């Protein structure tokens, strides 16, 4: 076991982690621990753009953006946070341009902007061009630009280090972050990082679904680490299903395709979104579009022999426009489906995409241990966190924005904190939990296999807690997850070595996914209403009287060692906007 000491430790090197690192490294001695090489992070898979009311191509302002974000989130958004997001969006985009990001340009040489779902002029009048973009590779460009600037600033990376535990020490009755424990993939060695401040920026957990746009590595490691240490997770029942994943594969096809004029059609060739969203049509918010797609499929208007998908039609767009604005997604259609998008429509289905919920933070990125109390020295930003700027449903292009605005804020806040705070003493035998977990997995002679349990988890999640949910389906999922968690105790791995043991890490990741799936399903069961991405067929309406509140889920361990999820609730911050019926 090795012990390291840094002022600030950042967990994860996607957009939020690297944006934080650029700020933190300038101000404090910083280490970034990342389970992937930074440029492998899934920020790079984001395509369509980053919202900011630059008003480069038409009238726009941050207040309209705030409204759209609040409405898009079905009023579960904390409005003070959304206002910060929309206001700071403008400087965030300009900062990236100054760092070198190659945005597409207007004929005047300014940053070009395009339409995106849910972003509107003057509180819903018509779509507005607010998304700043670089073809359909905006996430790739953000990830590369941030990595380039990390190289420039000399950010210290620990690549292929898996953070498996959060260390917390109680000082004078206050729980403070003391550091993290990490596992080095190359050697199997355990490292303890003592740090004054820790920032989680480790991304989402979409891999508990089968059809997902998420990378294999998005297994909720950060959320699971803090949850197991007794900290809450907020709004985990809200998961976004992106309308246009490649049929059966789930690979993302950007909403920018519809922003450029692409149309969704059913088997009769009908532009069905006109029925569900007369104003915004194909550019309604993602939850609305995904439900509309499944409604078409359920009512027998799906495409293909099994009627299980619909089409994204780009055939009316000029090939030059597709080449210039959507080069990557058209290539995906050619590579993975053998389809030429110039002439043929692309089969799509909704794909599990984004966790609106996560580790609760305030607007400075400080992690909360209950509805109001800050954990000194602990921060989170990006998909792992819940500020909450996305509420019940995130708008497209607001996630690339979130990582930049709140990544930067967390980086500054954590570094400022570690400039003044002292190191907190490490708990006795700080690596014990991780050592025990690793040894248990390595020496297990059980008869359960990781791949099989993961497959069963993904199948139950897709079948029971996807776009449409009922009490019965969610209960089925809760019971199945409980069974899988029990069977997980008997999981065994084949690779017993120390060197690059990805067999072992996949087992650890499955454990994280199982914990988070349970939190999600239990949270969803209790929310007896429909709001944003959480749609209950047995409670099809939004219920502001009983459920205008954030879910806070805590892990409880009984005297006999049994683990349960305890739910509590937190008020929503409302400033300018009173909840209204949501129409697009």
């Amino acid at each position, binding site marked *: 076991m090795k012990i390291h000491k840094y002022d600030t430790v950042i967990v994860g090197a996607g957009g939020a982690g690297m944006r934080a690192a650029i700020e933190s490294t300038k101000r404090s001695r910083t280490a970034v621990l990342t389970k992937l090489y930074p440029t492998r992070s899934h920020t790079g898979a984001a395509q369509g753009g980053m919202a900011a009311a630059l008003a480069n191509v038409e009238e726009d302002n941050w207040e309209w953006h705030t409204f759209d974000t609040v409405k898009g989130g079905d009023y579960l958004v904390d409005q003070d946070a959304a206002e910060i997001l929309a206001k700071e969006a403008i400087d965030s985009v300009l900062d990236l341009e100054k760092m070198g990001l190659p945005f597409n340009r207007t*004929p005047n040489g300014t940053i070009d902007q395009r339409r995106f779902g849910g972003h509107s002029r003057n509180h819903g009048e018509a779509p507005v061009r607010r998304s700043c973009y670089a073809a359909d590779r905006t996430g790739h460009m953000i990830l590369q630009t941030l990595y380039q600037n990390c190289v420039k600033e000399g950010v210290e990376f620990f690549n292929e280090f898996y953070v498996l535990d959060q260390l917390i020490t109680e000082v004078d009755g206050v729980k403070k972050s003391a550091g993290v424990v990490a596992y080095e993939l190359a050697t199997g060695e355990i490292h303890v990082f003592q740090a004054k401040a820790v920032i989680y920026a480790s991304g989402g957990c979409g891999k508990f679904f089968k059809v997902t746009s998420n*990378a294999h590595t998005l297994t909720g490691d950060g959320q699971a680490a803090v949850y197991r240490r007794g900290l809450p997770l907020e709004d985990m029942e809200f998961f976004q299903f992106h309308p246009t994943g490649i049929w059966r594969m789930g690979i993302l096809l950007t909403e920018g395709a519809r922003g450029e004029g692409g149309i969704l059609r059913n088997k009769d060739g009908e532009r069905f979104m006109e029925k569900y969203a007369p104003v915004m049509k194909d550019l309604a918010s993602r939850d609305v579009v995904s439900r509309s797609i499944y409604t078409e499929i359920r009512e027998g208007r799906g495409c293909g022999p099994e009627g299980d998908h619909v089409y994204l039609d780009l055939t009316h767009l000029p090939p030059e426009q597709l080449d210039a604005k959507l080069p990557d997604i058209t290539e995906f259609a050619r590579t993975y489906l053998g389809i030429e998008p110039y002439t043929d429509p692309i089969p799509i289905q909704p794909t599990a995409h984004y966790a609106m919920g996560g580790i609760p933070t305030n607007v400075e990125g400080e992690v909360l241990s209950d509805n109001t109390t800050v954990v000194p020295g602990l921060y989170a930003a990006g998909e792992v966190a819940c500020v909450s700027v996305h509420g019940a449903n995130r708008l497209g292009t607001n996630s690339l924005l979130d990582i930049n605005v709140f990544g930067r804020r967390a980086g500054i806040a954590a570094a400022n904190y570690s400039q003044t705070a002292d190191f907190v003493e490490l708990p006795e035998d700080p690596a014990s939990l991780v050592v025990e977990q690793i040894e248990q997995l390595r020496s297990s002679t059980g008869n359960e296999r990781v791949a099989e349990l993961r497959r069963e988890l993904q199948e139950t999640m897709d079948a029971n807690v996807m776009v449409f949910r009922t009490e019965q389906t969610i209960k089925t999922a809760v019971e199945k997850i409980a069974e899988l968690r029990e069977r997980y105790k008997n999981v065994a791995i084949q690779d017993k070595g120390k060197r690059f043991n990805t067999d072992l890490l996949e087992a650890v990741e499955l454990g994280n996914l199982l914990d988070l799936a349970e939190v999600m399903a239990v949270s969803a069961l209790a929310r007896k209403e429909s709001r944003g991405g959480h749609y209950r067929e047995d409670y099809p309406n939004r219920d502001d009287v009983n459920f205008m509140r954030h879910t806070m889920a805590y892990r409880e361990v009984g005297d006999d060692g049994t683990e349960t999820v305890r739910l509590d609730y937190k008020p929503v911050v409302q400033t300018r906007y009173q909840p209204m019926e949501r129409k697009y």
Partner: protein
Amino acid sequence: MATPVMDKAETPGAAPAASPYITVTFRVRRFDPEVAADAFWEDFQLEIDPKERVLDGLHKIKWDMDGTLTFRRSCAHGICGSDAMRINGKNRLACKTLIKDINPEKPITVEPIKGLTVLKDLVVDMEPFFQAYRDVMPFLITKDTNEPTRERLQSAADRERFDDTTKCILCAACTSSCPVFWNDGQYFGPAAIVNAHRFIFDSRDEAGEQRLEILNDKDGVWRCRTTFNCTDACPRGIEVTKAIAEVKKALITRRF
């Protein structure tokens, strides 16, 4: 506007009646110094839909047959650059290579990319590769003392000038396909030059001369012998050899 005919595109899995699965052999280069000093080939027979990816095949092996098989992967659709490997003798991303496109009749050989030290099975040491990248100063350098309040202006044509090289995902498929790099690990390699090109030809950047001097080094662009392996290997379709030629030309003319 004509309404498209909606039943034209019925892939994948067009005919649900017949099983799409075929049996293929994966011949994988194995190496684990914790177990044995030498590398060896191991064959795996698996059932796979030819429309699946080589990565899916590797997962079938790892998840259902041999958990010790080790490789890097993440996004599984050609964006993250984790899974560059040598498949049937050519550098490709395992997640962007479909079984049907590489003749499943014969054993499919999968081995680590060349020129970087193999650490375990298909995992190589990426540090020398990233060091070469860092050496070309891969970040925008400007001499502005007063930062502009708005974005810098750049014409669409100036933006287009370096578009091709912005696509790089640092997968190392190009560099590890280069015979010069195999023979002499000191050569910067195509990926580092691509990333230097991305800034040399960006109208906003003001350190082109410095980067050119770095690449004028004995281990720089002049080592390139224009074999086009890199261009063939690039999973992003970057014209790598052309980018290197443009850097050479800029070194001669000092115009860029």
